[in-house]
């Protein structure tokens, strides 16, 4: 790009220096807070006060931190789900719906099966069935993508709206299996006590957090060390190379999307096993599926980084909720604004991490054309 007599060139870096790997996300967070601050001020709130309350309630108090960890648990799962698919350039953006289906599947197992199972087996069964239903929800988009090349972006997204209405149907529109028969108030039927995990003490943190974090490490290890992980990495870099090397693109595409859906579904099942204990429309309000996409992108599809990013993000959300309890409440949506802007700035910052920017003075171009803009 040439501006006047200054020429700006991008030179790809072979490896990014360590300080930049940290500086880009930190700068993104700072810039996002500034953008959020402008909107806070326009809305008559003090950015400094709002942010200090947001950060202190999400990250410093004991219950703040444990609430954050509790909310982070399903978010880690949706983040892993997005990372698993996105790193192979398969843009599954249906985590939201897959998570709802995981909640439905998990609740089904918790109601229908858990009573007949020993407590030790019941929870894993509930989680597994939740993962299975989440995976099945992405089966159609996965097969379409692999066989016909149908854009998985639009198909997975459209199914989110179907899943949303499905949950609403089960709780508000029918008096079927998933609805509590003992009351006319629309709420989910409670799963068997066998299918629940107790919380830690009086907090909102559940042992599922440990499962989610361990899962992230297992995935990280698996992708680095397994043949399958190697194949997905090759395919991500160059689908043609993968094809020449005899890798089965159809099988890879379908399996990656199914695993991604299963991870999101697991998040929904963890919500059943942990705080909810039923099909709970509360999950529809917090957008953990969409947030998972942001988390995965910020973590640059690194599974271990997903865990950390998810916890940071959950803190924003918990802090955001605390902001509403005040004489001049700040809408909780500020947390979503911050998420969106962090992602936008982080995306823009990528180029500085990947490239060295060179600014040179140039001789005036004699045969000037517009071509170089």
């Amino acid at each position, binding site marked *: 790009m040439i501006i006047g007599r200054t020429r700006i060139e991008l030179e790809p870096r072979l490896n990014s220096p360590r300080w930049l790997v940290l500086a880009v996300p930190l700068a993104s967070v700072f810039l996002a807070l500034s953008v959020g601050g402008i909107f806070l001020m326009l809305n008559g709130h003090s950015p400094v006060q709002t942010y200090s309350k947001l950060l202190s309630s999400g990250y410093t108090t004991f219950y703040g931190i444990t609430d954050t960890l509790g909310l982070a648990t399903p978010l880690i799962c949706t983040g892993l789900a997005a990372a698993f698919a996105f790193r192979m350039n398969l843009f599954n953006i249906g985590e939201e719906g897959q998570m709802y289906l995981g909640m439905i599947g998990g609740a089904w197992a918790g109601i229908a099966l858990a009573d007949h199972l020993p407590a030790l087996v019941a929870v894993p069964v509930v989680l597994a069935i939740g993962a299975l239903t989440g995976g099945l929800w992405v089966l159609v988009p996965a097969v379409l993508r692999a066989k016909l090349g149908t854009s998985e972006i639009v198909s997975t997204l459209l199914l989110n709206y179907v899943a949303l209405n499905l949950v609403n149907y089960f709780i508000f529109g029918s008096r079927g299996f998933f609805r509590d028969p003992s009351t006319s108030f629309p709420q989910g039927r409670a799963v068997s006590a066998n299918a629940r995990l107790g919380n830690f003490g009086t907090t909102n943190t559940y042992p599922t957090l440990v499962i989610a974090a361990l899962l992230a490490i297992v995935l990280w290890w698996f992708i680095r060390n397994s043949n399958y992980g190697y194949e997905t990495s090759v395919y991500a870099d160059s689908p043609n190379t993968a094809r020449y090397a005899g890798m089965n693109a159809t099988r890879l595409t379908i399996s990656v999307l199914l695993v991604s859906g299963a991870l999101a579904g697991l998040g929904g099942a963890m919500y059943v096993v942990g705080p909810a204990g039923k099909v709970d429309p509360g999950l529809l309000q917090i957008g953990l599926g*969409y947030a998972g996409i942001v988390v995965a992108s910020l973590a640059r599809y690194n599974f271990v980084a997903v865990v950390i990013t998810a916890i940071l993000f959950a803190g924003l959300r918990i802090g955001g909720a605390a902001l509403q309890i005040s004489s001049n409440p700040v809408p909780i949506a500020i947390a*979503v604004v911050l998420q969106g802007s962090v992602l936008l700035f982080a995306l823009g910052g990528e180029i500085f991490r990947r490239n060295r920017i060179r600014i040179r003075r140039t001789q005036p171009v004699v045969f000037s054309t517009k071509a170089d803009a």
Partner: protein
Amino acid sequence: MNSNVWVLTFADGISIATTLILASLGAIITERSGVINLGIEGMLLMGAVTAFLVGDGTHNIWLALFLAVLVGMAMATVHAVLTITLRSNQIVSGLALVIFGTGLSQFIGKSVEGKPRPVRIEPIDFGALSDIPIIGPVVFNHDPITYLTWVGALIASWYLFRTRPGLVLRATGDAPATVDAQGVSVAAVRYAHTIAGGALVGLAGGWFMLARGTAWSQAATTNGIGWIALALVVFAAWRPLRAIIGAVLFGFTLQVPYTLQGQQIRIFPPEILQMLPYLATLAVLVVLSTPRARRLLGAPTMLGQPFVRDER
């Protein structure tokens, strides 16, 4: 139930189609230049909340729509800077815009949440013409923007296929290197059309709020119409005139659940009916992905690819 109800449903479908046509025209123009902007849903929401707030404050419909257009352009500019200049991933940038737009519209719309629509874009009064059976409600009962939208689709089609800038635009999406070799700036073409597309999407959101919306109800206001518009682009094979046909069909599908509910026809529970437009869209996408359909469609070849000239 009488046939009149279905005529009205169809007329309503045509009315809803205005949003779909505007949004998909915006997407077509953007995508023809090789840039895919998935942020439409977020831009619609921002356009809608802007129109609501301005309409609430000034009761001036045209100012409200104008600012909705500006907001759409601003968001498209963000996408353009990120994807064209900074060469970010277009998919992720679009998704970030959806999240940002959803959050920001909720944030600034909090004070008017649940409040009824302040001003309404009224249909043009055609007098006796609108009383003609069938043709009256279908053709002569819409507001100025709806008619402008139809004209706009005609103009867009003429621009794309009959003018030189339109030719350059299509070439930029299909073979940017050739355009570059001709001495035309690929970046400039992409910027211009991404931002122009954003203007149309912003208008779509603003119009939807003031003509179809009843109250500002957060993300449920648009309820995924932006994604349906994106599917519509594929359906229309990136051609403005086909987008009209598709939009009317999709608009009709979106309206059917409400008609059936209004008529007390309970073949399906309402929640199941609400799924239909999304399932129908998905079904259409599937049919369009068959190899035979694909040959006929012709998506811009370099859609989603950043253009970097091979230097030296």
